[in-house]
């Protein structure tokens, strides 16, 4: 169990978010705050709107109402790459790696925003372009060591097993040096050892780099162990918020998971 949160400063606040697709409400009046350097979980049954919530945070979906404040900046509409510029990184439920590229290039692509040399130097692969390439390669090698994926550096990621792909995807997100890291089911489809590894990485990232982490996960034991606070979504609404103990004893949450609340 990580220590109780000592960082009350708020990095992201979600205010009255409403999102619908042609009449179908995906999210309704969602509010919550995420504190700096905490591990925060979003849980809920299938179709509760967890992934939609992440999509709203990093600008992929545009909510009809509501507002998001990230690092004190208000925003209503923004493109995903602007979210990336602000320091939000993300992994996906179904791995979204660049399948034709090697592990190394995938993680290097996460450094895209840190690289500035212009096209003329790039064409020559000399001077600033080469220097920049080497500097970023060092950072990427550090991440590769950190995630213990040295041996698959040159393998096209399409050929890697699922568990390793998830790890490479985490590496790509880390390469962006984000302030906020969104993880969409980082442990889905993994066996117990892989899950343990992944938990260790998540805790290390949080501790070593001080990255704030938002996590969606189905495995309750993992969520309860990892996260300091969480919200529970059901049918697009927030039904509970609090630390693991509060959530465990919340009657609404128990109902939602057992299906009592909707047994019409």
């Amino acid at each position, binding site marked *: 169990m990580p220590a109780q949160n000592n960082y009350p400063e708020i990095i992201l606040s979600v205010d009255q978010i409403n999102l619908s*697709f042609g009449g179908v409400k995906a999210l309704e009046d969602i509010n919550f705050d995420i504190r700096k350097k905490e591990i925060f979980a979003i849980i809920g049954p299938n179709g509760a709107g967890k992934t939609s919530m992440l*999509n709203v945070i990093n600008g*992929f979906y545009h909510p009809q109402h509501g507002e998001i404040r990230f690092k004190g900046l208000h925003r209503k509409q923004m493109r995903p790459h602007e979210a990336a510029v602000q320091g939000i990184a993300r992994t996906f*439920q179904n791995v*979204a790696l660049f399948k034709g590229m090697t592990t190394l290039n995938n993680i290097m692509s996460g450094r895209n925003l840190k690289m500035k040399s212009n096209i003329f130097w790039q064409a020559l692969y000399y001077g600033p372009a080469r220097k920049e390439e080497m500097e970023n390669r060092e950072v990427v090698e550090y991440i590769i060591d950190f995630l213990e994926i040295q041996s698959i550096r040159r393998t096209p990621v399409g050929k890697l097993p699922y568990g390793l792909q998830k790890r490479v995807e985490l590496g790509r997100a880390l390469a962006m040096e984000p302030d906020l890291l969104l993880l969409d089911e980082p442990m889905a489809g993994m066996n117990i050892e892989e899950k343990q590894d992944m938990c260790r990485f998540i805790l290390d990232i949080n501790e070593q780099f001080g990255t704030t982490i938002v996590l969606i996960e189905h495995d309750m034991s993992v969520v309860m162990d990892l996260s300091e606070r969480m919200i529970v979504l059901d049918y697009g609404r927030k039904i509970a918020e609090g630390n693991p103990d509060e959530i465990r004893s919340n009657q609404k949450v128990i109902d939602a998971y057992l299906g009592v609340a909707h047994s019409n």
Partner: protein
Amino acid sequence: MEILTQIFIQPFFDMIGDPILFLQVIWEGFVTGILYSLIAFGFVLIFKASGVFNFAQGIMVVFAALTLVGLHENGVPAYVALPITIFVMYALAFSVEKFVLRSLVNQPDIILFMATIGITYFLIGLGESIFGGEPKVMITEELLLPYGSITFFDDMLILQEIDIAASIIAAISLIILGLFMGKTRIGIALRAVADDHQAALSVGVSLNTIWVVVWFISGIIALITGIMWGAKSDVSFALSIIALKALPVLILGGFTSIPGAIVGGLIIGVGEKIGEFYWGHLVGGSIEGWLAYMIALVFLFFRPQGLFGEKIIERV
């Protein structure tokens, strides 16, 4: 100012000033549009049933027409040549399924698209090797198609009988196909495949059969189009460039919509004739070659999914 008048005012005065001529231009465009619609229709059929963007549809038109005329040139009477051509189109559908599609199942769409470009080249080579490269004349008379013309308004408005026949035949073909799709067992299976390949497979529809059937139907539509088009101009592979105009038609109508293909074809056909006739001379003429593409391109900015297509919600 002069130029602005010529672009924005003069053409409309011309249209109102000579309404019969305007009508004639619209009719010409309409007739071409029907042929575009037919090609686009064959295309949509294949796209819906197999997800293949069939670049070869235009070539199939020429290939069918060429086979028919070529057989006739070699002494086969028209009433025998027609069934043989239909059989050739079946053989083509069968071979495409057996040798190309079957091996490329589950490949990315773009790979299948490029494969149909390969098929296009193969058919051009094959057609020309067998029947020679020189343009041929369609056997309109032998197929009992009318060839006179009807005039209205003291000979001011001239309608070719073959064009009228083409419109009627196209309409009948579309109705028959509509009935076929709605009423017969295979038609329903075809719609099932169009909705969801996997689900159709799981209820026992044979994908391979369906693919042969849709390619064959497209082949027959290609034959009809080829006859009509051949009656208006020569039969040669130069036609295939014109047949490519079915592509902007599809952009306009949406790749998966049969009404879209028909309406899109008529819009493009009429639009480019009017554009050519009233505006073309301002920039040197012959803008028909690219106008359709430009119309489609501009259209894409406003409605990327086409007139009748569905908006795609992307998920991650």
